[in-house]
């Protein structure tokens, strides 16, 4: 009989513990303090001082739900749209923007700061989704490798088809990797939908290597980190972070970025206020805060991307090693949404089969 009692107790405690709303509930802190819940992806980061400045100024508590990559986080927000558990969503980029807008998870907000933001970053005329930061996916190369071998580094996408750059490029799979998709979009934007596959056929003939994720491409295959491929698809910020994120102080990066016209693809990340929020006033304040210089200046060293607000100042060392493409390739969010699957499938058939 004793054991049965134990089992019953177990069952009961389980249900009670499962049902207790204590954990994660917004109301558990002090009496009048409200909580604003921000849903985002796992690359989100910010300085403690910046976050607490906002919390103290508004006497609120910020809670972040930051799990899963950008696509996963967005899917969660969409699936919860009838019964949202967050007030704001940050981190949808231009390759996913159409999905967010079609599913109408956001409500429009005409933040006063928007007037300061350059038009090139604004992709949604209704301002459901407001731009926060941007970063370019570009080809990086190992400068040491090219100087050691007395080869001039490539200048643009077309160069990679030349025989002297055979066996040199490693790219990420657009089906599994965000920079991989961005680079495919760069080739589509640059060569056009009719010709991009020809370009990739040329890369295959030049023995391009494909891996599934940025970590493998950068840390396993890129020659800077011991691999045998001196050209890699990464970000325009990577060389600067090689300097900032180096163990020993170095005066200059060992890698460089190719920034010729149409060789990069610009990823822009957006924030939006979720439909159904009960904290609209706070949500608007938070969005304003994200666009303000305080938050914008914190972005680069925390998230490795760049502020959209031109008033935000960049760290001096950082700025020194930053290469910014003047004319990145462009593909509209609607085109990406409409063709994502067929482009990736066509690419897979051409490059992997």
């Amino acid at each position, binding site marked *: *009989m004793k*054991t*049965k009692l134990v*089992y019953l107790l*177990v*069952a009961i405690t*389980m*249900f009670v*513990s*499962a049902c207790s*709303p204590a*954990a*994660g509930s917004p109301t558990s802190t002090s009496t009048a303090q409200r909580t604003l*819940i921000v849903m985002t992806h796992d690359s*989100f*980061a910010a*300085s*403690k001082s910046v976050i607490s400045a906002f919390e103290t100024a508004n006497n609120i508590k910020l809670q*972040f*739900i*930051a*799990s*899963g990559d950008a*696509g*996963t986080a967005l*899917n*969660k927000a969409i*699936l*919860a749209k009838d*019964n949202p*558990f*967050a007030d704001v969503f940050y981190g949808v980029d231009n390759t996913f923007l159409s*999905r967010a807008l079609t599913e109408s998870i956001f409500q429009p907000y005409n933040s006063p700061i928007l007037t300061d933001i350059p038009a090139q970053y604004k992709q949604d005329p209704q301002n459901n989704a407001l731009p926060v930061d941007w970063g370019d996916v570009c080809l990086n190369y190992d400068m*040491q490798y090219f100087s*050691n071998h007395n080869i001039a580094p490539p200048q643009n996408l077309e160069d990679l088809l030349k025989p002297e750059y055979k066996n040199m490029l490693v790219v990420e*799979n657009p089906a599994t990797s965000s920079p991989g998709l961005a680079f495919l979009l760069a080739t589509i934007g640059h060569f056009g939908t009719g010709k991009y596959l020809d370009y990739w056929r040329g890369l295959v003939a030049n023995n391009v290597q494909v*891996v*599934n994720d940025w*970590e*493998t491409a950068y*840390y*396993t295959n890129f020659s800077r*980190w*011991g*691999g*045998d491929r001196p050209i890699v698809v990464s970000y325009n910020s*990577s060389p600067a*972070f*090689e300097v*900032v*994120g*180096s*163990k020993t102080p170095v005066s200059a990066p*060992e890698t460089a970025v190719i920034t010729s016209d149409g060789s990069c693809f610009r990823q822009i990340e957006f924030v939006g206020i979720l439909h159904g929020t009960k904290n609209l006033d706070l949500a608007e304040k938070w969005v304003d805060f994200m666009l303000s210089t305080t938050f914008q200046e914190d972005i680069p*060293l925390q998230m*490795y991307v760049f502020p959209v607000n031109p008033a935000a100042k960049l760290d001096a060392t950082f700025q020194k090693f930053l290469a910014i493409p003047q004319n990145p390739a462009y593909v509209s969010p609607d085109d990406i949404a409409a063709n*994502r*699957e067929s482009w*990736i499938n066509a690419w897979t058939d051409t490059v*992997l089969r």
Partner: protein
Amino acid sequence: MIFKRYRSASLILLWLAPVCFLALFYFYPMVSILTLSLARSQGGLLTPFISALTSPITWRVLSFTFWQAILSTLLTLAVGLPGAYLISHYDFRGKGLLQALTGIPFLMPTLVVAAAFNALLGPNGWLNLGLKRGFGLTSPPIHFSNTLIAILIAHVFYNTTIIIRMVGDFWSHVDPRLGQAARMLGANRWQAIRRVTLPILTPAIAAAALLVFIFDFTSFGVILILGGPRFATLEVEIYYQTISLFNLPMAAVLAIIQLLCTLGLTIFYTRLIRRLSIPLALKSHQVTQRRLTSPRARLVAGTIIILLFALLILPLAALAIRSVIRLEPNRGEQTVMSPGFTLDFYRALFTNSSQSIFYASPSTAIAVSLGYALATTTLALLLGIPAALALARDDSSPVSHSLDAMLMLPLGTSAVTLGLGFIVALDKPPLDLRSSWLLVPLAHTLVAFPFVVRNLTPALRSIRPRIRQAAAVLGASPGSVFQHIDLPLIARSLLVAAAFAFTISLGEFGATSLIARPEYPTVPIAIYRLFSRPGDINYGQALALSTILMVVAGAGMLIIDRMRIGDVGEF
């Protein structure tokens, strides 16, 4: 009649907690997300099924999933069974350490495993580095990643410990006199193995192989990172359809196919096991194990130890060494590396140089991981023990068979589908757990619970029912029968089960990454964050933290192995 009714009433009580748990935290979320996904289909319910089943991609993915899982399982058995033989038959110094070390791979997150193999076999790994230097080569001679071989070796690396522990543990209690008697009666060595040893071991081997197969079948990280873009399992395709394409109906159909395969496997397994289970008199270590005295025994043991060492321990050692050796190309001469000892990466781990709100010191991450692991172990044992008891007591009714098969389903479920299922289903008070930390131990328990059941049931089944009946006749209540008969007899299996639950939770990454709270990262999450940033200091810290995880895991395994030598585990 009364006895029978009493029996089924007690069975219902035993099943109550496990069934409620699965219903609430597995079936409800799964049914919710699958129906919601299918409802999004534009051309009616059947369309996604038709388009999935007529697509050549589905069939290609499905056949590859089976093919690599079968190959991986066979290879794992080939490595694991000699290992199980070694630890069950011989007593030697360092055995506990060997067992603990071979257990570490199982709980390593895929990113760490990929980094470990990279440190050993990658273009700049120790092996290629040595070959390049030794033979004066300019390019690395070994190409490991993005091959089928890499997938198979990684699967063997991960799962060998399942075979060693589950089969070895059972084997160490099998009376050696059974085999000896067969030899005395004129059977040769091979006949004795085939007719006596194998039939006795089959339930344990089948149980272990099934678990290995399910893990290989639903493999995700290994395929993605080490296998590369040319290989896709169902799990990888489900992820792609869900996240990249947001084709939820297609993802749902693939998830259902994966579930049906798992269900089919477990039904097959439960049938098999019913026919094969033999009640045995389990023997103590003292009877079954010998010291390594003869030269032949030493040779056999030495060979097995070297094999296990090369496959399971070397990659981990390569990673640990890389975390304290700075290895950068000398500027100016690309091919020459200058190794040097450094503890900088460990120092950097303990400073929050970025001032990030989500910074967690390694000690915080370890504490969070240990807390979740403890909660998971408790929950998994509380649910697993009654379920295993019920299964062992009633192995004939169809209800019991179908419940048995269903317990395994969470292992064959795609993490991304279940993760989204939580968001859709657990969204109303009092069960609004969408942003709760509780989701983490709950998800870990779903994975650990079947392990506990699979470990305990064979042990409970092999207890001769007459011992229980004798106790009952002598006036013991069912509770005291459990306490004085079952519990002491299964104590070792219980510890193995607890060890599995604990380590599964420590190393779980896939589900955790979907539901963890950013301010409470587990060690695998913290490692992932470091890996995904450029710069040698981040990569080095990731390796350092991985090494710390390895040490913590190894220490945990050692403690568990030590603990059972004392008061329990004597039969």
